[in-house]
């Protein structure tokens, strides 16, 4: 029997560990001192403590993780997402230690991790990249001349940039020279480097990515697209497949480009090629994520495949048992990410004990969760708690289903983003499929700022809680105020997940 160590935590570790158990593999969880009672520890056959709560001391600690693999005799390692998932050094150290890394080769990881190198390789492989200047000659005249062939609008961008400094958008070539001068000045004083680039500017682009699977023999297929345009501060919150913006013809072209991108770096295992899709139907390579994605379940639901099972089979040397032509999309799937972020208070982190948890269920509803009732949300890690994924025969059914499921999703004790997610998927612009990357700033610029009135039913439930709580507990007299932790604590025992 093979044994898999999952070098991660939270919902993704739980999902991978369960997938490995389904394949008949032995499973090893690793955990930090803050995570000894976490769900991923509970679902694994073996669990090894790898250090202090801070990620640097535990989930990013390669020595401790590899030592845990050695101690438990785990012959394979799955990195999950985040932490060390796109660290070429971990992949290569696994290789050296004779441990199967469930993912691509170290060289594929490092090539795709270098944006400039990746862009070059993609350009040579015929994968479309955003047209832009090389910028070797930084004189205004040279940059203007170099940018002549790019269709406007244009974006002037600082090489050392960030935070919008040294950035200018111009509608046509006439305004370019002035914009370059301004941007050079601004970036010179902001970053001490006045180097700028000129690129085609994409207005309200969509973020469309393609799921790739490639076996060790080089057989590479795509499992269609995921639309991930709805993002808050570059954090995806809603993902779906198929995309309303992708026609069958466009899907075929983008899918081919994604497969070509993966083949160009000799990619093995599951990966994702991200594109920006312009309004005119042009698409451009953005980057490749050399790991399993957070939003992989929407692909699983419409393609009818288990990506974790296939990752393990591929790592084990098995070939893909199907061809591109065998793959079909069935129905529509939407995912909402449940974050421990309080949307009524500027999405500030919300920590503490989950006092009550009710997860939605019913046809077409899947919850990938890393939490349970009684779980303590700590400040050390990413705020993702769980993912709600639905499947419906079509987009409208899936949309209605996810609204309904979000209404059923009750987490009390902390303030997750559930009410915000519900308003997003219930918005008419979402129903119309107008999901572009500026969806949230456009439709939800100031969500939750208006005062929310507490309905009488809420007072009623709290009063009943006070009254019935005392009656049910029995041992307490009516006048003695029960200690909330006594009562809540005893209720939680045996209440399950």
């Amino acid at each position, binding site marked *: 029997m093979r044994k898999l160590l999952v070098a991660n935590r939270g919902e993704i570790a739980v999902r991978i560990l369960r997938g490995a158990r389904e394949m008949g593999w032995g499973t090893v969880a690793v955990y930090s001192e803050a995570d000894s009672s976490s769900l991923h520890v509970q679902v694994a056959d073996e669990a090894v403590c790898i250090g202090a709560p*801070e990620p640097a001391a535990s989930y990013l600690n390669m020595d401790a993780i590899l030592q845990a693999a050695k101690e438990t005799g785990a012959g394979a390692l799955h990195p999950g997402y985040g932490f060390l998932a796109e660290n070429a050094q971990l992949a290569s150290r696994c290789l050296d230690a004779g441990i199967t890394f469930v993912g691509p080769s170290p060289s594929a990881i490092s090539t795709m991790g270098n944006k400039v190198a990746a862009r070059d390789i993609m350009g040579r492989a015929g994968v479309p990249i955003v047209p832009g200047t090389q910028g070797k000659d930084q004189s205004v005249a040279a940059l203007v001349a170099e940018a002549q062939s790019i269709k406007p609008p244009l974006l002037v961008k600082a090489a050392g940039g960030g935070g919008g400094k040294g950035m200018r958008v111009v509608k046509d070539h006439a305004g370019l020279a002035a914009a370059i001068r301004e941007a050079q000045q601004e970036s010179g004083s902001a970053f001490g480097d006045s180097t700028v680039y000129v690129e085609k500017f994409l207005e309200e682009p969509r973020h469309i990515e393609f799921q790739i699977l490639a076996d060790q023999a080089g057989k590479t297929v795509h499992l269609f697209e995921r639309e991930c345009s709805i993002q808050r501060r570059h954090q995806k919150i809603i993902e779906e497949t198929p995309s309303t913006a992708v026609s069958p013809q466009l899907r075929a072209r983008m899918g081919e480009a994604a497969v070509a991108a993966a083949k160009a770096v000799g990619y093995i295992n599951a990966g994702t090629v991200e594109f920006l899709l312009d309004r005119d139907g042009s698409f451009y390579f953005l980057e490749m994520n050399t790991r399993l994605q957070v939003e992989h379940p929407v692909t699983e639901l419409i393609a009818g495949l288990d990506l974790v099972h296939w990752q393990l089979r591929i790592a084990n040397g098995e070939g893909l048992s199907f061809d591109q032509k065998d793959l079909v999309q069935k129905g529509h799937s939407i995912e909402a990410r449940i974050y*421990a*972020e309080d949307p*009524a*208070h*500027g999405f*500030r*982190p919300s*920590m*503490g*004990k989950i*006092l*009550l948890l*009710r997860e939605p269920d019913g046809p077409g509803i899947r919850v990938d969760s890393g939490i349970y009732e009684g779980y303590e949300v700590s*400040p*050390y*890690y*990413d*705020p993702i708690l769980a993912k709600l994924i639905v499947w419906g025969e079509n987009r409208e059914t899936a949309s209605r289903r996810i609204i309904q499921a*979000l*209404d*059923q*999703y*009750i*987490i*009390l*004790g902390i*303030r997750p983003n*559930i*009410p915000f997610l*519900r308003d997003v998927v219930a918005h008419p612009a979402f129903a119309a499929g107008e999901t572009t990357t500026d969806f949230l700033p456009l439709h939800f610029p100031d969500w939750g700022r208006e*005062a*929310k009135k*507490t*309905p*009488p*039913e*809420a*007072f*009623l*439930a*709290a*009063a*009943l*809680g*006070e*009254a*019935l*709580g005392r009656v*049910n507990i029995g041992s307490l007299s009516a006048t003695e105020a029960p200690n*909330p*932790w006594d*009562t*809540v604590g005893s*209720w939680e025992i045996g*209440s399950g997940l």
Partner: protein
Amino acid sequence: MNYEFQVGEETTTVHLERTGDGFKIGVGDATFSLKAEQIHPGTFVLLAGHRSIMAHAVKGDGVWHVSVDGRAYDLRLPGTEDHGGDSGDDGPRLVDGVLQTPMPGRVVAVEVKENDRVEAGQVLIIIESMKMQNSIVSPVSGRIVKVHKETGELASFGDPLVELEEEDPAGDA
């Protein structure tokens, strides 16, 4: 039996009375009759006429966390501290000149030192929590009397961050 709950600054009295097969409940001026059953600790089925309402309520640290129709509300028992649930106040709390930690995390930067003059809105301390950097800004203009945290230290909810002497708004100083 009467119960009092606070939301923000407002206190609401709820009158609860058992009737033959249910409850009569007064919230403020309104009165409701309904059947109610706690089917699982924290989970209530409320039947008001033909209307069926699923409600959840659990108490922690003197706050009732309630969910009705998928929306969550925090109702505090009188005399308990406001943790900023529904009050609409999401800034750090200044209590007797002491600025308290609004969220647990690690202090990653201290931008001020003793005796510094600060403006309202100026960043004092940055706390990293759940991989996010949160700037703690001064709620008032004034002078820093004492800095309680150092870079790298952990801060729990309510821990003192800095002591501030508020500037006299009349400008006599």
